[in-house]
């Protein structure tokens, strides 16, 4: 209780700041933060699968499916945003289920290869299926999000929508992680043979983690489509998928906050390089530095700093060391 109070206070402060941002910051920051929220959803939704020990390097494929589905539903059939978003997420989850069912029996690198192949296949479909997606010309004119009959025309209103979506997704994922389900996922990641011997149907649990992740990636994609209003297949390629993975590793895999911290940190820091070749170089360098100096990710940094300070106080005898 005593330990969680400062954390709860800090979270509340962050939330208030995020709620107030549109009043203080300019349109640019509102736009930027909304993109960060999308990245947070993508990053956090990859976590259940990683927890089970499945390396998924194709998460952006499901974002792509969610984005195109929602965009096409809204554009061609004038479906309201709340329905098209759900449609995109459900289709992403459905495809995830179909891909996951046969391939989740594969372990480690073999499963990772299937996801890599799938993300490229999805991108190619989006490029080639011109009558539907307009291919590399890009799908433009995606309607702005329209909720309960109201069109969210301003960047600020869309920002609040993104914030709400992120909070809901994070809340659900948080509850799942700290439930029996989350513990079973963790147990599969630690020792899948032991979990099996205790009666856990590991194939089903892995499939559930993977499909849930795909669902929320679909949610992120659907919002992205109506926010940017222009979809371009190469954006959903292998590169974005690896970035989502890098968020998880750089943020840290040991705690729920890891992928969130990683996504926020990297999205903000890489902003000057967005869309340029330097972005990839930046991500690689950060990934390498993390592996070398912070193998537990950014979330282990505060603990390490405290440890460092303690060691200093011990070596240098000062009046404060007696306390």
């Amino acid at each position: 209780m005593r330990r969680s109070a400062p954390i709860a206070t800090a979270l509340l402060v962050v939330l208030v700041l995020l709620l107030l941002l549109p009043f203080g910051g300019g349109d640019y920051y509102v736009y930027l933060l909304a993109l960060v929220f999308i990245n947070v959803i993508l990053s956090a939704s990859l976590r259940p699968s990683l927890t089970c020990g499945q390396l998924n390097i194709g998460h952006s494929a499901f974002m792509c499916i969610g984005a195109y589905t929602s965009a096409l539903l809204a554009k061609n059939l004038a479906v309201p945003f709340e329905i098209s978003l759900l449609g995109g997420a459900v289709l992403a989850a459905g495809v995830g289920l179909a891909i996951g069912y046969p391939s989740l029996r594969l372990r480690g690198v073999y499963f990772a290869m299937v996801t890599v192949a799938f993300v490229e296949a999805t991108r190619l479909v989006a490029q080639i299926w011109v009558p539907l997606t307009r291919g590399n010309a890009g799908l433009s004119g995606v309607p702005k999000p329209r909720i309960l009959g109201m069109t969210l025309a301003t960047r600020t209103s869309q920002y609040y929508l993104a914030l709400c979506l992120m909070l809901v997704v994070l809340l659900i994922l948080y509850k799942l992680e700290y439930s029996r389900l989350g513990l079973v996922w963790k147990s599969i990641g630690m020792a899948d043979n032991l979990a099996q011997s205790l009666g856990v149907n590991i194939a089903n649990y892995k499939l559930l983690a993977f499909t849930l992740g795909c669902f929320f990636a679909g949610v992120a994609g659907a919002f992205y489509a109506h926010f940017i209003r222009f979809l371009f297949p190469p954006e959903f390629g292998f590169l974005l998928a690896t970035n989502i993975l890098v968020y998880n590793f750089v943020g840290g895999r040991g705690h729920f906050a890891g992928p969130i911290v990683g996504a926020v940190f990297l999205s903000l820091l890489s902003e000057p390089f967005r869309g340029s070749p330097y972005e990839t170089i930046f991500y690689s360098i950060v990934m390498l530095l993390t592996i070398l100096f912070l193998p537990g990710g950014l979330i282990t940094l505060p603990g390490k700093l405290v440890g460092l300070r303690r060691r200093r106080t011990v070596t240098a005898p000062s009046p404060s060391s007696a306390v």
Partner: protein
Amino acid sequence: MPILETRDLTKHFGGLAAVSHVGLTVGEGEIVGLIGPNGAGKTTCFNLLSGFLRPTAGTIVFGGEDITGLRPHQVAARGLVRTFQLTTLFHEMTALENVLLGLHLHARAGLRQVLFSRRIFPPDEVARSSEILAFTGLAAVADQLARNLPHGHQRVLGIAMALAARPRLLLLDEPVTGMNLEESGRVMALVKTIRDRGTTILLVEHNMKAVMGTCERIVVLNFGQKLAEGTPAAVSTSAAVIEAYLGAGLEHA
């Protein structure tokens, strides 16, 4: 009727017959030891029985039901639960959480419980797990991470988790390996108590003192085949068994 019966159980790895034509019978309430020199096929046998490997040929009947080819979680659900060699545990979880996961088969968690309950585990499951920890002598370390436990405790924790799954037949893979005399004595006493509470036991172990002192019947494997079977006294004086362990005398070579 025996609780476990295998007929012609065979497993080939490529050209190697790791287990061939093994007929194994375990009666309800017995403590049976499975011994043999290294590479005799004991662990392969365990993997076959618990569903981690599919037999090349032969059948496994457990509790009157043919369980050949079932997957590990299905085998466990029928009450045939195994432990692992070495210390296979959920190392980053506490001892209590490890046992709580052992309750998996008998726990019901609906979506409502997952999303809206503040507790991960209902109180009755925590109570049941604490009871198992107390029974196995681990109550004092319930809140410690499994990886921080001493070796002896880790091995016993493996047994405690298996008990949580409510086995009718417990397969113990080298339960006292790496333990000192006092520790192994305590674990073998625990094994007897578990049996007295109604769980049949089949164990693989290299510690002959422990095996001879605890098991009522012993099956000896060598080169994947059943070499001998009988009481500890009969097996330990059998010429074939001595030959398998110590090698044949020069005059036989």
